[in-house]
């Protein structure tokens, strides 16, 4: 009986120790100086910056390296003018561009616009987001330029994708959208 009591006590102690490991807390680190350097880490909280947030937009009137500015403004007139803008991509590389465009389209657009561009993406099928038009909609008559414009600024409920796709990628997607439109209206 006494032996039983002792072994039960040991078992409880082991279980108690094991349950001390809290999954809401990070584990111990051996020599933390080696783990965390003096330099700032991505997204770190920094006291002297506004809101303590390290992630900030670029300083006004500066552009990041490699950025291609977009001349048209986010107005109805700008949108009208964008329809005239032609794709700057090399037409000899069309196949390659379409392949990249498809890959990006499937990540960023297909969830609402559908893999075929018919406006029946998974979110629309589940009725989470409604009213996504088909690319073949005659009234809208989309062009590569207007597609780029909408991706850059967003339109109505659609947000801007300027921070997820860069200049070249946006044009690649725009060209792929045109291909989908062709397939739909065929």
């Amino acid at each position, binding site marked *: 009986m006494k032996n039983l009591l002792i072994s039960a006590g040991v078992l409880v102690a082991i279980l108690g120790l094991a349950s001390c490991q809290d999954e809401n807390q990070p584990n111990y680190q051996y020599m933390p100086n080696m783990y965390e350097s003096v330099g700032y880490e991505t997204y770190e909280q920094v006291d002297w910056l506004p809101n303590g947030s390290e*992630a900030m937009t670029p300083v006004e009137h500066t552009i990041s390296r490699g950025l291609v500015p977009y001349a048209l403004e986010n107005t*109805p007139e700008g949108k009208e003018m964008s329809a005239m803008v032609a794709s700057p991509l090399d037409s000899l590389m069309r196949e390659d561009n379409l392949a990249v465009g498809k890959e990006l389209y499937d*990540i960023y657009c297909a969830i609402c616009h559908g893999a075929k561009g018919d406006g029946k993406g998974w979110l629309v099928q589940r*009725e989470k987001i409604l009213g996504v038009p088909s690319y073949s909609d*005659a009234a809208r008559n989309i062009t590569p330029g207007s597609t780029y414009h909408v991706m850059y600024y967003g339109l109505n*409920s659609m947000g801007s*994708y300027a921070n*997820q796709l860069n200049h070249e990628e946006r044009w690649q997607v725009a060209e792929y959208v045109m291909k989908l439109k062709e397939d739909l209206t065929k």
Partner: protein
Amino acid sequence: MIGNRFLYLKKLVSRSLLITGKNIEQPLMKKVFNRHQLTALFGFCLVISFLFSPSLRAQEEAAVAEAEQTEAAEAGGEGPCGPGDVAKGKQLFNQNCAACHALNRKMTGPALANAATRLIEEEGLDCDWIYSWIKNSPGMIASGDAYANRIYEEYNQAAMTAFPTLSDQDINDIIAYTEAPPPAPVAAATPAAGAGEEAGSGGVSNELLLGALALVFALLVMMLILVNQTLRRIAEANGVVLEREKAEKRLPIWKAFAQNQFLVLVTAILLLLSSAYFAYGWMMQVGVNQGYAPIQPIHYSHKIHAGDNKIECKYCHSSARVSKHSGIPSLNICMNCHKSIYEYKGNPEGPSAEDLANGYTNEFYTNEIKKLYKAVGWDEENQKYTGESQPVEWVRIHNLPDFAYFNHAQHVSVGNIECQTCHGPVEEMEIMYQYSPLTMGWCINCHRETNVQMEGNEYYDKIHQELAKKYGVEKVTAAQMGGLECGKCHY
């Protein structure tokens, strides 16, 4: 010892059977057997009764209510501009209008419930105005129509797309849908109540079941003790002396152990070895955060976003394609969808019992969306950004020590490695946790086992061929390409 005693008791029973005949022994055995059967029956009945909870009926009622509602919705409706088909109107509305308009809520454009009646009665407009507005709103604004310009200014000059393809009858259908009395409250209340009841009874019956099992267990223990006592009493009555009481005093076992030096030595070595084993195991997990699942400021469910809604990982973690860091999405990416999705409706069948048990109700998730609105500074009433935003202090889960270099783009875009290979079944995680240990051994193991994809990479064809020749293999692994060199990750 215990085994011995049991054997002895068994012998005792059979002997007393022999001695006293069946008269005494039989009733005793029977009694115990009966009692056992009774408790078992009791437990069985309990289990059965829990299986049939009232949830079944609740679901039936909900289904009936729903059927009634759809029936009502399918009937033709009478709009102010002529008869229209409500069902067809709903379809057209969802296809063409719902991107910017909701029935009872301001979105990019105004709420449309009873909009036609309102326009005709309050603004003194007619059906022709509505038709031409829908078919060509920019034209109406340009022509200087007073109400058209007023509404255009009121909604931040968001131009409504022209719908020249809609016929007058189509518009009548849509109006019939927007004018139809909203059946929503009845429909929403009934299934929700049914689901709640179902989950509630599920939770209660689980607890009751456990309680019943504990009760059965306690009864069994009591019975064992009783049987033991009775048998002892019989033994005493028959004049049998229990073996243990008979046993004479012997040398205590620990003293015997201490006297045997060889045994002490072996035990000491065994103890040392096993404690070294456990100490090693403990030290090896220092700095390893596998399973780390911190509480985040906004309860973001990867299960709902990546699982149920099948949103690509790279949609939000966009920079994993192109940079070292996989990127915590900024809140504007959340707003790409949550501008439209302002409440959590979940699956058509409602939240599962498991979710409810954890408190993940639809209201809970809707509340989390409101937290997002607050952080990003989105004014839901006016559908505008207030400009007052505050950063969300996400807790970082995956964190490599600074002396190890890891590049997401290299693995995701070049290596074509699925996110799930390292991050585990994220699409099933309600709360995100670290799936892999992220230790050096884990990295190296993968580098040794993973073949490099070399197809369609003409630029490096020659190098790849020579590498394969050098190692005498067909497929070159990441390790053979230098994936084990120290300087590749530590510099």
